[in-house]
Structure formats: structure tokens, C-alpha cells
């Protein structure tokens, strides 16, 4: 079961906590908004990914199951 990170662009306000907590998969564009790598979250980073999701002040980051 693969998992992907998804950003709700309406909720996202560009806090940038996600990119700090998961730099392997999330970088910030020149305006401070997250660019999420277009790949499933590797097992080794699942814990960090969940941590990043929980730390988003805008609740904009989600870890979703992909078929």
C-alpha cells in the first residue's frame, strides 16, 4: 500500500514547517509554498512524513493512501 503526500493548496498559507521537517520530499518554491516530490513516500520516511503532517499549522498536508 503506497502513500503519497498531498497539499491542500487552499488551506496552505506557506508556513514552511513541512519542508523543514521533510526536506527529502518537500521543497519550497520562491514564494514559500511547498513543492511535493511526485513519488510515493518511502517506508523509511513514513514516520517523518506523519510528523510533518501533524506539524502543519494549517492542516494542509495529508498522507493519503494510493491504490
Amino acid at each position, binding site marked *: 500500500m503506497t502513500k503519497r503526500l498531498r497539499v491542500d*493548496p487552499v488551506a496552505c498559507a506557506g508556513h514552511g514547517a513541512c519542508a523543514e521537517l521533510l526536506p527529502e520530499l518537500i521543497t519550497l518554491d520562491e*514564494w514559500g509554498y511547498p513543492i511535493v516530490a511526485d513519488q510515493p513516500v518511502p517506508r523509511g520516511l513514513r514516520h517523518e512524513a506523519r510528523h510533518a503532517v501533524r506539524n502543519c499549522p494549517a492542516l494542509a498536508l495529508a498522507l493519503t493512501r494510493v491504490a
Partner: protein
Amino acid sequence: MITDSLTLPWPAQEASAPASLPRLLPAAGTVPVDLRAHLARYGALRYAGGKGRIVAEVAAAGLTGRGGAAFPVARKLTAAAEARPAPLVAGNGAEGEPASSKDRSLLWISPHLVLDGLQLAAEAAGTGTAVLYVRRNQRLHGRLAQAIAERAAAGIDAVRVDVVSAPDRFLAGEESALVSRLTGKPALPAYRSVRGLPRLGPGRPALVQNVETLAHLALIARYGAAWFRIAGTEAEPGSMLATLYLPDGRTSVTEVPLGTGLADLLGLDPAAAGPGVDSVPSAGGPVRAVLVGGYHGAWLSAAEAARLPLANAALRPLGTAVGAGVVAALPADRCGLAETARVARYLALESAGQCGPCFNGLPRIAAALDHLAGPHPDQRARADLERWAGLVTGRGACHHPDGSVRFIRSALRVFAAEAGLHERGRCTGTDPRPFLPVPAGRPARDADWS
């Protein structure tokens, strides 16, 4: 299960089936068709009875949405029929695209076709609630209220129809914006993490169809799938309403079969084009380029357009699509980059302002394009534009950034030679008057979205 529809013949009313186009609009004129004239021309709509009955016929007809996305209608109706609870049905007549006037023309002239279709969609979905979502316009709302009252007096509608006004914004007709507006909130696009029917809220799905789609539905219900397929192509059957802009300034809404050659549509005469000239003569004057699909569509050079039909199968490989049927022939004396820059500015200002990449990227892209539309643009403008275009694509809640970038990139491709001339301080455009319709810039306030 729709078993009975497979065994019984469709109750066709062949005697009154229009043999040729136009189907949705009267043969001539813009006089609104009242209920009596509507019934005299098309006959009464005998509801086939039962949820899902019409879906098989629509599937056989191959009707796709006429709002721009061309989604198969039968699939949407099936999803609506299966949805629990029964969805709200909405006819989308917001027509936020400034270059398109087909929906308001259809609503003004043939509202009864749209209202018939709305009843059919409600029946297919098994719901008792229908809404018609129309741009805020007193005359049009008055006309629709009149049409609904006529039908109520004649007792022909099973489901009550409410008319909801859409704000005057480009994105007001976007599906999730419509749904948001129906819940009483501003018409702002929403982030949708799951596909399927949009929802007004938890447990409240909605079936949204463009008003032209509903009009076709009303005719398929009367005359059947085989009749519908007489026009159009095998893969893209039926007719559609197109908003045409000819180079001499004439504009019209015309019903055409899908697959009609753009050359026929615009009166282009490619054979008469001389060698080494990048415009094609037409009945209305020489044409430099053709915009297909509206402001989220794409430009084609006149020579390309002259060889292509108005059909997605041929247009998609070139990065464009039929969309909502806008076809605009740019006169050869206009600068394509200047036109595109004007529209790009409008598109940027029409951002809902919700998603960072969109409200940061589109204005920057528009500004860079404006530089490219002028003399001796900055060296970095083109590279900046490309970088920003890459940054906004796919990163908004709706397709506004993607569609706008598609439109702008197509301009850079088709008007590449022009861009080269601008770098040297020259331009082939001799007429500075604007050609494409762009509403006058007015500063947007949050209340404008309600």
C-alpha cells in the same frame, strides 16, 4: 437496473425530429421561444419514467459535456443515479468565459430545452431538487422566471427549479465554485482530494451539467441516440454551439456539427494563401492565428487551423481542445502577443487568491508576457515566464493556473516569430485596437465572489 430500456424501442417522435441543424436554436433570429412555440417545434417531452431510464440512451448517443471538459454524460448520470442520498441537480449557465456567449444565448432563446433537460437529469438522478445557476443579469433572470412560470402553469415539471445567481467572475462557473455558491458561500473553487461527484457537504452530492448539455439531453429524450448521431463524428457525435469571432469584427453563436473543419467555420481559404506569408485569407480578411477553446484553450497558426476540424481527437495532440466552443480568428494586422498579454492580465486578476502558486505566479507571468509584447523586452522575461509557468502548473485547487499557462505557452509557440521581431524593436501588428473581448479591469473585492 435499466433492463427495460434495452427491450423497448425508444419512444421516438420522428415526425418532428429536426432533420438538420440548427437543433437547439431556431433557424433564424434571436426571438425567445415561448412554451407554446417550443412544444409546437419539438413536441411534448414524454418522461421515459423511472430513475436511470434515459441513461442507456444517452450512453448510446455518446453525449459529452458541453461546458468544456467533454466528460461522458452517461457516466455522470450513472454516478448520480447510484449516489446516496440523491444528488442536487444543477444546470451550469454561469459562463464565466468572456469570449463565450453560447450559454446565455441558449438560455435567452431556448430556455425550455434547458429546463426540459434539467427535469430529465433530475429524474435520472432520482432527486426532487434542481437549480439553474446563471450569471447575475436582471433581464435573463426575468426571462427564466417567466419560462419557469409558464411550465408551472402548464403543470409539466415534476421537479421545482430554483434560479441561483452566479457572480460575474471567470471562475464562477467552475464546478466546485458552483457547488460552493449553492451552499450560500462565495463562488470560490475548492480543493477536491477525491474524484467523483462534487459535494455540497458531507452526504450531499451534486450533479452539475452545462446548460447546453441539458438542451441536447432534452432532444435525445425525444428523438433518440440514432438521431443524435446523425451529426458529428463517430468518436464525437452530435452538434455543439460555437461562439465565433471573425477577423472583420463580426461575432456570432452558431450551432455546428462536431468535426466541422475550422476552415469552413471561419471561411478560411488556405489555397489562396501565398507562399512565405504567415496569414491565411478569409471572407472577413486575412487571418494570422486562430484561438480555439477560449482563454484556457490554445492558439493555432492560421495555416494549422485551416487543416483542422473542431474535434478533440485532432486538437488534443496540438495541445488544445474544443473546450466551450470559442473559435476566434485573429486578424493579420493585430499583434498576437499583445492580445495574449491583455488576456493574461485579465486571467491573473481573476485568480481567486486562495492558492499561493496561483496568485503569486499568474500575475508575474502576465507581467513578463507584457514585457514580451513590447519592444526590446528584458533578456530574462522569457526565462522567468517559463520558470513561473512550471511552478504554477498543477499546484492550484482548480485548473485556472494550468489552463492559463496552456493559453500563454501556445501564444509563445505560434507567435515565436513575432517575439523575435519585438526583440529587435519591431512588430507586425499595425492595429492597436483590442480584438479579443476582455472585461474592463475593475479591482476585485472579496464580496464580488458572492
